[in-house]
């Protein structure tokens, strides 16, 4: 009998600290499955962010570095330049990547640095208690936008995929979601594709994963997934924004 489903080898048995209903766990699993499928566990180095995934290194059974807030693409650059044969990925949230780390992500992308970035967008700072993120939607209430994000005062959310896709450096940029099984499977494929691009030496790849934060959104996990689908996807459309090669149809 063939085993078709099991615990990914690239995850440690450690229980995650994430809140019930949080989608970080799903995304961790998708990354681990991609690493397993591609047989790159022994050569992969991850970079953990500052954010809810700050302890990501506890959950992946691969070498890891913990970066300062927003600096993961620079750290990834350093690692990749020392070990060009290693598969290097950073795992970053929206505050980390799209606010304090905008310089680092833009320039890593512009350099075409041969690394993979998994970007988790849940429109809120989870770790520090629900403050406004660069991706917080117009009108969305957070602890630092208590009357709703007022675009006339604080401006507009940043669409990271669209912005980075204007650069010539990136090889692959896709936005995916994990609000239902169908989309989770699609997200898994995108993550795998991003790693494949790196293995092939094509350059910078980034997958933005639309994600939920039931705790800071004040919603049940199910309602949070609904919000993702109904409010986030219209603002952050899914799809491939840049690919230097035809994406193989599966």
């Amino acid at each position, binding site marked *: 009998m063939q085993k078709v489903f099991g615990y990914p080898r690239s995850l440690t048995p450690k229980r995650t600290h994430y809140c019930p209903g949080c989608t970080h766990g799903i995304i961790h699993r998708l990354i681990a499955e991609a690493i397993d499928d591609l047989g790159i566990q*022994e050569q992969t180095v991850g970079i953990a962010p500052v954010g809810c995934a700050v302890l990501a*290194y506890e959950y992946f059974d691969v070498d890891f570095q913990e970066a300062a807030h927003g600096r993961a693409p620079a750290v990834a650059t350093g690692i990749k330049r020392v*070990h060009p044969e290693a598969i290097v990925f950073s795992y970053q949230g929206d505050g980390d990547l799209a606010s304090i780390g905008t310089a680092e992500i833009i320039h890593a992308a512009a350099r075409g640095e041969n690394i993979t970035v998994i970007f988790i967008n849940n429109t809120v700072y989870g770790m520090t208690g629900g403050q406004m993120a660069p991706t917080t939607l117009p009108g969305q209430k957070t602890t630092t936008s208590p009357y709703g994000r007022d675009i006339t005062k604080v401006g507009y959310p940043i669409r990271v995929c669209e912005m980075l896709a204007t650069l010539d450096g990136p090889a692959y940029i896709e936005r995916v979601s994990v609000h239902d099984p169908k989309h989770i499977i699609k997200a898994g494929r995108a993550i795998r594709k991003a790693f494949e691009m790196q293995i092939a030496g094509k350059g910078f790849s980034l997958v933005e994963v639309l994600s939920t934060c039931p705790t800071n959104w004040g919603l049940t996990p199910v309602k949070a997934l609904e919000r993702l689908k109904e409010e986030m996807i219209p603002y952050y459309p899914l799809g491939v924004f840049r690919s230097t090669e035809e994406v193989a149809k599966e």
Partner: protein
Amino acid sequence: MERVMMKGNEALAEGAIRAGCRFFFGYPITPQNEIPEYMARRMPEVNGVFIQAESEVSAINMVYGAGGAGGRALTSSSSPGISLKQEGISYLAGAQVPCVIVNVARGGPGLGGLTPSQSDYFQATKGGGHGDYHLIVYAPGTGQEMVDLIGLAFDKAEEYRNPVMILTDAIMGQMMEPVILPPIREVTTEKPWATTGKKGRAKPNLINSLGIIGEDLARINIELQEKYRKIETNEIRYEADGTGDADLIVVAYGTTSRVARSAINMLRAEGKKVGLLRPITLWPFPKQILADLAAQGKRFLVVEMSVGQLVEDVILAVNDRAKVDFFGKLNGTVPTVREVYNTINALLQKGGA
């Protein structure tokens, strides 16, 4: 071996390459630009990596990544740029990642000026960023030391898994002096902790400064402090010139030690008993030799291009057992030999300790 004339900045760069450094990440700022420019030319010749980063912040984090991955990584900057790097330096210290940071200091605070200065002494020797930590800090006094100390810096960085700083200034960086370059060395240091990909290891490696869980942070800090005590025991370096029979000892490092040496030579030619104590490691600081000299009844003059930073460490070291005078120049000006000569003479004439 052949002597060649090199600018201090070039000597640092070539010295790093000879010591096996193959990863340089930097950002332009005067007066250290010769270093990235030299590296941009030279690294491709030795199959090394040169990246002009988007900021000093990114450059130091590239160093963190590269150092954590086991590479001999270097960054250089000047005072305002070093301030920007302090975030990364604190992380490097916390995660115990070896690397070398060069500060070709200029005047501050703020944007300051381009003129040479020693006003980054506190920043370099007292940690500089957040948290309880120290860098090993070398202050070269000659072109040859630029070469020798940066090589030593890489070795010590790896021996102790600690960032090491070379603190110098615009004069030392721009001055040309003959140096003897050592041959290029192959670095074979074992780094079982480096993030290389697991490569068959049972457990993954982790480069991390987070101590958020339980007593982790206390444990990390205790470990760091034990390391610093070891460094203080083993790594203090200084030059003592004519301190044995001196009545007055000038304490100075880098550029001001050179100026002081000229003044001392003039005074000695007149038969005056003046010595020079030149710290080569600014941290760990040569406290004991100063304490011993103080106990012998010497008096001290500290010469600095700052409002007085090194002088505080000297006062702490002599601990009220000796008189400590200070001669400092501000506004990015360099004390002249004549000024130092006059100051020493005046102190000698006043007499007494």
